[in-house]
Each structure stands twice: as C-alpha cells, then as structure tokens.
C-alpha cells in the first residue's frame, strides 16, 4: 500500500506544482522518485517531527499542499501539538501520512505501532481522517485527500496487503464502501485488518449467516447513513479495527447510534487496552490480541445466535 500511495502522490505532483513533501528522515526506497523529480518541493528536515510539521504548516500557509510522511506514530504523536495548534487551528492544507497503521511494523515493537491514532486525530477540529483497507481504496483515498482543501490524516498500510474489494471502489470523504451485502448482521471495519473480517464473513456465509461487510475508510467524517442503515436493516453490528478499544471506529460508530437513539446488538472488536508487548508479525499479533479470523467468526456466530 505504501508503494501505491507514493505512486499516486507522484502522479498528482506532476500536474500540481503546489505539492510539497516534508519528511523527517524516513521513506527510504519509496520517496526517491518524488525527491528526484521535485527537489525544490522536497525537504528532509532530519529526525525532527515537530519541525517537520511546523515547516509543513508554513509551506501550506503560502498556498501549497504539504505532505508530512513517516512511520506509524512518528508524524502524529511526537508532534501532536503542532498538528493541533499549527495545522488544525490555522486550517492549513497539510496532509499527515503514516505508513504502517496499527501493528503493521509488528516485530519492531510498540515504538513503531500506531494504535491510538484514530482516537486522537479525530478529536481535532478541521481534521479529516482516512483509513483505507486495501490498495484500490488507498489509491482512491490519495486522490480524494489531495482534492480536499484542509488538514487530512491518512492512515496508510505497509506492504503486501491483499485486496479486499473485488470490484472498483467509489471513494468520497465521509463515505464508506460495501464489500458484501447481507441481511443477518453487519461487520463494519476499517483498515487492512479488514482482510480478517472478510475471511470470517465468507466462512460465516458458508455456515448460512448472511453478513454485510462494509469498509469504513472515512473515520471522520463518518458515514452515518451507512451505520444507521446497518442498524435498522440488520439489527446487529460488529466493528473491527486494529486500534485500541477506546476512541477509534467502534467508539465513532457507537456515538452515531447513541446520538440517533437507534438501538441494535453491538460489539466492538479492537485491540484490548493493554500495551502490545508480545513480539511477532502483524498477522500473528492480530491472532494474539483477539483480531484473528477465528475471533471475528466466533463473534459473528455468537451475535447471530448460532
């Protein structure tokens, strides 16, 4: 997905002279085509994420589109106040891109995991939060992000993701994408962990449970209509995200349901509120922390009463 992101960005930068990349010494093997093509619109600020974000804000305030880009939690948590006070308060056209949302950099450890990003980023006024699930969605998300005037948080995957969508994706900020229709219950997911949700939903279908599966690629604004439709039409919602249990997709969906006074059976599946200290690949860690295919399938069966 990282490669797809950089390819789409480069295409846009070739036609839009306002696009700048502001880095903090991360991006080896991916950012070179941009750096070589547009040396005057590229800067490596060194290992200095606060400065990276401030510089991006200054560049954007001069009428440009500035991309900050780094691993997992580096461009968000280290420089959160710059994002809040500089980027969001001034509504600057800065795009904050992380590579490796969730546990993508699994064995590198917690310092390289991004598992509370959706909670903190969606709490910022003016911030749009996008979380694509596969490469086709990621490509569309880049186009939507760049066409939008204002701060955007882009939670990119890493590499080797399987496609979840089997047909072309229609992407809009504030939208969602149905992967599979269904009447018995709805699984709403965000990000690349959706592949596990998809496998669980397909297995459930073989067992006679007809699940709707929806990619909630826009965490803020969120597709309220899709959530309320799922509640009223299927009566049961499971949310799946590679993020702390608090404040991410599950929280956002619960807020929509409560505000609309719509009740349905509801279960959040997310990382438990613990420090992820086990060592292993993303796939292995998903299994360890309750986001494996079997975990999601078990929850589908339980909620469906089977």
């Amino acid at each position: 997905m990282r490669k797809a992101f950089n390819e789409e960005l480069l295409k846009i930068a070739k036609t839009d002279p306002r696009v700048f990349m502001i880095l903090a010494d991360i991006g080896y093997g991916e950012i070179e085509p941009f750096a070589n093509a547009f040396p005057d619109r590229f800067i490596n600020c060194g290992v200095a994420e606060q400065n990276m974000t401030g510089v991006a804000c200054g560049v954007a305030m001069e009428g440009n589109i500035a991309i900050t880009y780094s691993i997992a939690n580096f461009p968000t948590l280290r420089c959160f106040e710059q994002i809040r006070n500089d980027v969001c308060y001034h509504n600057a056209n800065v795009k904050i891109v992380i590579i490796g949302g969730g546990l993508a950099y699994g064995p590198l450890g917690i310092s390289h995991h991004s598992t509370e990003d959706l909670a903190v980023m969606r709490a910022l006024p003016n911030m749009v939060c996008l979380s694509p699930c596969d490469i086709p969605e990621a490509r569309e998300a880049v186009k939507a992000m760049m066409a939008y005037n204002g701060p955007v948080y882009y939670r990119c995957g890493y590499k080797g993701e399987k496609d979840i969508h089997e047909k072309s994706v229609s992407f809009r900020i504030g939208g969602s994408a149905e992967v599979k229709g269904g009447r018995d219950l709805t699984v709403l997911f965000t990000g690349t962990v959706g592949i596990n949700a998809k496998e669980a939903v397909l297995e459930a279908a073989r067992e006679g449970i007809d699940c709707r599966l929806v990619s909630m690629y826009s965490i803020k604004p969120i597709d309220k209509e899709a959530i309320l439709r799922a509640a009223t039409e299927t009566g049961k919602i499971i949310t799946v995200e590679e993020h702390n249990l608090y404040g991410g997709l599950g929280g956002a969906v619960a807020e929509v349901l409560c505000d609309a006074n719509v009740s349905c059976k509801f279960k959040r599946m997310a990382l438990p509120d613990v420090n992820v200290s086990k060592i292993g690949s993303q796939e292995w860690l998903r299994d360890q922390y309750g986001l494996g295919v079997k975990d999601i399938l078990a929850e589908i069966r339980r909620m469906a009463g089977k």
Partner: protein
Amino acid sequence: MNQDCAELAKRTRLNCLRMVYRGKSGHIGSMLSVADILAVLYSGILHADPANPDAPDRDRLIFSKGHGGAALFATLAEKGFFPEEYLDTYYQDNGKLSGHISHHLPGVEFSTGSLGHGLPVACGMAMAAKQAGKTHRIFCITSDGDCNEGSTWEAIMLAGQHKWDNLTMIVDYNRLQALGRSQDIIDLEPLDRKLRDFNWEVVTVDGHDYAALERAFSSLPLEKGKPSCIICRTVKGKGVKLFENDYRWHYGGITEEIYDNAKKELEEGI
C-alpha cells in the same frame, strides 16, 4: 524616526498596562520587553500595509512568544490594522483579543502561545518563498523561553542547513523566564556562538536602542546565504521600575495601586 518609535512604544506600553490590568491577566514583563522592537519593525522596516494586510508580497512576522501578544495587538492597533477599541476587549468575555496572539486579527500572521512553534512555521514560509522565487522576508520573534524548546533548535539547524537568508530570527533576550533567571534554568550563553555554529549570522544589539535596532534591521540579510539572527538584549518589564528585571512579572497580576503608579511612570517617560 527615533521620536516616532519612542512615541509608538510608549503608547504600546500604556495600552499593554491597561489591557493586563483590565483583563486581570499576566505577562506584562514580556510585553514591555518587546515593545521597542515592535515599534522599530512597524516604523518602516516591515513591508506591511494596514489597508491591505494580506497582500501577497507583505513581509511575514511570526510572533513566537505568543504570551506577549498584547504588545503586538497594541502596536497593530496603533498602526491602524484594526480599531483601537478592540484593545478594550483583551481577555474579556466575547472579546476580540485573546491572551495569546491570534491570527483572527488583521495583520497577525500566525497564532502562537505554546512555545517552540513559531520558528518551524517561519522556516516553512521561508522555504516556500525561496521555491516560488518571491522576495518578501520572514521574521520570527522569539524569547529566552522559546529558545528552551527543542523544536526551536530543530528549526535553527534546518534554516542554517538550507541557507534561508530570507529568514530573520529576533530574540527578545531579557534573560528571565517564568520561574527565574535564564542562566539558572537553561543558560543559553553564548547564544550568538551557538547560532553561528549552526550557520547563522548574528548581531547583538540593545533591544531598547531605536537607532541600533533600525541599523540591524536595515542590514538584512546580515550575510547573503545565511539566516540572520538579531539578539536584542532587553529588560523584562522595561519602563516600569517595579517590573524591571524581576521574573515575578512574567505572570504577576496588577492591582489598582500598581496600575496607577506604573501608568504615571510610563506617561512621564522612560
């Protein structure tokens, strides 16, 4: 010019005193410290037009020591960027002017308040101006406390690295900060040498000497191919003996008696 600057700075100081007194707020020491620097900048140095505050070719001024923002508000009001009546609403319910500098006012480029934010943004503006081949200049006013922040030094290193000579950092260097003397907290000395080591050109001036300030500001860039730093040696609380060189007036509130005495002292002149 000196007389004009003195008059502008005097009015700024009196306005700040009144704003802080009415608002029951703090930071008077920081405001009085920077008043003369602002007076010189807005008396012919900065290309800034009150009738067209967003002109694309304006010089950008980022006021990174946002807690002293009332001094910039007062200066801008005096120069006609917005009505002087706005000053009466400083720190008031439904007011126009917040306790820290706000970009919602004409002539204010950027909101600050948390230290260490100004210089990185100024760097971004400097980079964008260079890339676009524009000739306007970018100024950033910092302070002792602002130079404690790691992000300020991240920006200092980057600006020197990239030789942004359209960028000027002005340090309101009064050697006091919130809880005491800078030399007892984070001793920045020798600040000029530290900046030169990061490829800046530096001059040190008396931050209350209008002629010296004007000479320094008229010599920019100090060296072609390097960002410039003007270290302004200032007195925190300048103009009111009670406030001068006493860190307690970083936060200290002003009673009616203090207000009356300070106002009299400022009106009679420094």
